[in-house]
């Protein structure tokens, strides 16, 4: 479903990713490991069209991202859910409004928005907090809202960039369990993290990056 062929990316001549070749199948759970600055976030940015590679090709569902016009990038992003370390929730909007945003920008009907937002919030166990505002929630809850927003429109792939970076070990386990259940429903999940606690909780494919290069590529568990 996602293919990268000899992808390289530079920031002001500084190498961020070097000659990355990867193939990710539908329904996989990928852990992108590596220290800060290894190139994990850059790789995720390439997958949502926020950055373009200087070399190589990226295909998502058979479509080359380098051939996407600027007006087609929003369409790509509607198929990709994104979870970030700093949550990026709108503090002055209710939880319901925050989660409904991806549906709103697609022009979903009122009925669809109500139904899907309720489902999304139920999936993360926070449907009872839909009328509250983000500052009134704990960090773990805010991250779960962020996940609900990422999955509300049924993306084909969920990208998470350091999703547990601001969470304690207990909350980290909760979030990882949530990702596993989303993955179990058929969504491809790619989690970029440098948190070794996460590694122990996921028996899946682990790709380790360092200095912009893939240094190991292993299948953990079944």
């Amino acid at each position: 479903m996602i293919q990268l062929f000899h992808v390289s990316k530079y920031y002001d001549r500084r190498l961020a990713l070097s000659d990355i070749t990867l193939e990710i199948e539908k329904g996989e759970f990928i852990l992108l490991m590596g220290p800060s600055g290894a190139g994990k976030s850059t790789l995720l940015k390439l997958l949502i069209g926020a950055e373009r590679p200087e070399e190589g090709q990226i295909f998502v569902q058979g479509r080359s991202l380098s051939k996407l016009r600027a007006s087609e990038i929003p369409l790509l992003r509607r198929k990709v859910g994104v979870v970030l370390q700093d949550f990026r929730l709108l503090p002055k909007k209710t939880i319901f409004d925050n989660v409904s945003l991806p549906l709103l920008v697609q022009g979903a009907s009122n009925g669809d928005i109500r139904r899907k937002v309720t489902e999304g919030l139920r999936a993360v166990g926070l449907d009872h907090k839909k009328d509250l505002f983000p500052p009134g929630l704990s960090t773990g809850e805010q991250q779960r809202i962020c996940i609900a927003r990422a999955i509300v429109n049924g993306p084909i792939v969920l990208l998470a960039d350091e999703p547990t970076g601001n969470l304690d070990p207990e909350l980290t386990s909760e979030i990882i369990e949530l990702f596993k259940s989303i993955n179990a429903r058929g969504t491809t999940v790619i989690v970029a993290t440098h948190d070794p606690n996460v590694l122990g909780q996921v028996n899946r494919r682990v790709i380790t990056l360092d200095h912009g290069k893939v240094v190991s590529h292993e299948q953990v568990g079944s």
Partner: protein
Amino acid sequence: MRRLLYLLREALANVLTNRTTTMVAVATTAFTFACVGVFLLLYVNLRAMALSLEQDIQVIVYLQDDVTGQATAEIEQQLKVDPAIASSAFVSKEQALADFQVQFPTESHLLQGLGQNPLPASFVVTLAAESRSSERMQRWADRAQLIPGVGQVQYNQAWVEALAGIVKYIEVAAIIVGVILSVASVTIIANTIRLALYARREEIEILSLIGASTTFIRVPYLLEGAALGLLGSALSLVILKGGFELFRHEIRSASRFLGVDALLTFFPFEMCLLLMLVGLFLGCAGSFLSLLRFGEGRA
């Protein structure tokens, strides 16, 4: 529907979030529009006066003293069939003398010493509406001068030309001032929108991340700019109307301008509407400029 409501709500939220900046922008825009409006009002009123004067202007075709009755009839016939003429009236030598004595009773003794009537017979010609411009009047006068039996052709050329000149100058000044102040209004609105964009940059990034199209992101800011422009131009019309009424009242009080106040007119309703539309358009242009500067990648 929900999407439209969202966009309108966001535009309103932008305005309310930056209340002070918005008020300053509307007031400054109103002031700049009012400056342009003063020139426009001057132009509209002087143009109306020029047109009204042109309506009143008559051309006097004086006949030579020795012209025969038959020649006079031929000239009259020639004037009657001329499409450039709306009407013409013959004034005989005797009538001219009688008119002079009525108009200048104290000076009428001046003519008595001359023995015979020195005043020539004439035709008082009113030109058709399309022939009343300064150039056309001059052309017609030159042509009439060549008619056999015609001595002299006169009209208030200096007046017409002077007024046409003033109107032209005001027109040019209004255009120059209009362009400069429109650019100023666009810049003021652009800066206000830029502040709103920076205040909400994180929200813009989130919208972009979840697949909002550029149009979806831009519309609230374009609406905000349009609202600022519209409010600014509406306020400027209120200021202008107030100033105009005050000026008219002053003119009415000063007795030497008797009757002039009745000639003064404010913008007609259609023009007010047009000015508000111009404000709206300039507001949109200001927003668009800011959105472009903010960066294609983000907005």
